[in-house]
């Protein structure tokens, strides 16, 4: 019983963390181009800057 009273809340907290992570990834548009993400790993150029700038702009527009 004591094991359950620890494990059940723990699993729910982990579940909530997963949910929040998903909502965050939606908000930062990580699902917009799934095929592109797969192809971009082969590109040499430093694309991270572009993504970060985009994310910041988007977040500030939504106040997030």
């Amino acid at each position, binding site marked *: 019983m004591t094991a359950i009273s620890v494990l*059940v809340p723990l*699993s*729910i907290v982990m579940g909530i963390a997963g*949910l929040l992570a998903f909502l965050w990834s939606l908000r930062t548009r990580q699902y917009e*181009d799934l*095929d*592109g993400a797969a192809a971009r790993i082969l590109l040499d150029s430093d694309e991270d800057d*572009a993504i970060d700038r*985009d994310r910041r702009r988007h977040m500030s527009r939504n106040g997030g």
Partner: protein
Amino acid sequence: MTSKDLGNGLRQSVLSIPAMHCGACIGAIEAALTAVPGVERARANLSLRRVTIDWKRDRQVAPDLLGAITAIGYEANLPTAEIDGEDEILAGLVRALAVAGFCSMNVMLLSVSVWSGADAATRQTFHAISALLALPAIFYAGAGFYRSAWQALSHGRTNMDVPISIGILLTFTLSLYDTVTNAPHAYFEAATSLIFVLLIGRVLDHAMRRKARSAVAALTRLIPRGANVLQNDGRLDFVELGDIKARMRLRIASGERVPTDGVLENGRAELDAALITGESLWRSVRAGEAVQAGELNLGNPFVLRATNAPADSTVAEMTRMIEAAEDGRSRYRRLADRAAGLYAPVVHSLAVLAFIIWFIASGNLHTALTIAVAVLIITCPCALGLAVPMVQVTLARHLFERGVMATDGSAFERLREIDTVVFDKTGTLTTGAPRLLGIDGITPEALKLATALARTSIHPMARAIAEAGVSAEKPPTFTDVRETAGMGLEGRLGGDLYRLGRPEWALTTQDEAVMTVLSKNGEALARFSFGEDIRPGARDLVATLKARHFEVVLLSGDSLEAVEVVANALGITDRRARLLPTEKVRAIKNLQAAGHGVLMIGDGINDAPALRAADASMAPTSASDVGRSAADFVFLGNDLRVVTDVFDSVEKAAGLIRQNFVLAALYNLISLPIAFSGYVTPLIAALAMSSSSLIVVANALRLARAPRSGENMAKSVLEART
């Protein structure tokens, strides 16, 4: 170009690049665009085959984005779907889906341990935790269903959401009561997974709905906001569009679109009417001849005497016709809605019946309510809600890989009722671009000279000559090359003056019947005549359609001779020439009145009303913006054979939808007696619901596993790049 303002002078445009298909394409396109002065950022999206560009005006000049993409060998179009504003409804649905998924999975986890025999104390704790976990799903994720149900009820109607809402809320309340009274069963997982599965159906369905943009919005962009009016004393006044009246004299600058119908006052004008008629040849207009609203002035500025106020112009008339046709189309009721219309009343009456019978038989309100709720849950149209959208989404994806974009899910259903296919000629059955004919009759030397001159111009005929004359030899370099609007090109080589263009301008003698000549000091060197190319696959398509007993009709605005040539080449017997847009619509209405389902394939603005009036419609990506917005399907590349692919896939999908309906109904037939007799436990409900939904989804996915040739897509990619 359409763009949206991001502030600070920064603008954002979206371009569709059909041929983008790999990582190297992304790299090349982004690099080419970023190199254009004024472009701040370019981001390609491979899934949607689009690129989003943030740009600024560089010294008041908008960057040439299309040019940069064309220069590296890709073809870019403006996207069909609306670029402004992301889809808020879809985003909201996905958020609700995430919450419902989280809640239902956790509740299910707890329920499994209850079903596998937890003791009473653990069971009650788990039920209480489940109740807490169910709250966000019931009140946040399910809100859309209650709103829709309430809206239907307050208008005295009923829809699928009414039994769903009653089911969810009753289940939740009853389970809450059972938790408090420490009863053995609670249905929290049924209520939450119901919301989850139904939301999956909703998300898929929404993704397939037509985007809010209408063809009319694209059409109004063709008309400028106003025009410079030439007053009697010679002054120029800018007058708003609404204040332009007939008989005003308007000065149309080079590169401006004509705001209203009128007559050319003097001189000559070179006009591009491609967006209006689909005709790619530039029109040369003399004084006294008519000019239509929406045409683009490519040559020198000219003065136009308006014959109509803008509200009465051809484009305004077209707008009204499209609106009228759109009204007619909205009467179509989608298959899923028709199924729901039958289904909802049956479910209601069954649940009420179960309640009444059990209340009379047992006299126990709680038992009667529990069984009525079980009937509602079991008959809940989860599988039914997935049956159609799941197939449509798979079908849309399947067609997208073959180069066909569907803008509306219901078009798949409408396409099945087609028995007549109506084609437009210019730009649809033909490629729309002129091609040099009889190249054998031209000496290589003359062709080389003509090519060298033609290269300096973007006129469609000059391009056709330049294309035909490509050779390894280095062409001579002309000096003083000039283009005279409406006439042609001239240049000097040594002491000689060469002219390529209209015979009356290029030659000293006036006896030529051909359209274009090359002359040296007024003496003809070569004569050029042009024809249209028939689109690849057009012949195969017409033959296939006829073999399948479709009626094939050709409706064209072009001259009878031009129509005859194409119709004879393709074997189309029912052909009509010189049709106005209204007459095209009337011809389609007549076919529909005779009991035919009509598919219209066309591209120009003059086809837009007909595209909307037909039961289903297709346009090539090379079509005008308005044509593409008006069509249900847009196909990439040049090959018309994809139309056959669309028919085949839609037929296969219709079979799968039918199977899905049968599967869903079968499941209800089996489970309903169990629910009615009161034997449903939460475990049975959960198993029945998820298994039927999974079967329907798996069945729909069979469409994607159909043998992939990938041949057409590869071909259209190649064609788009060359």
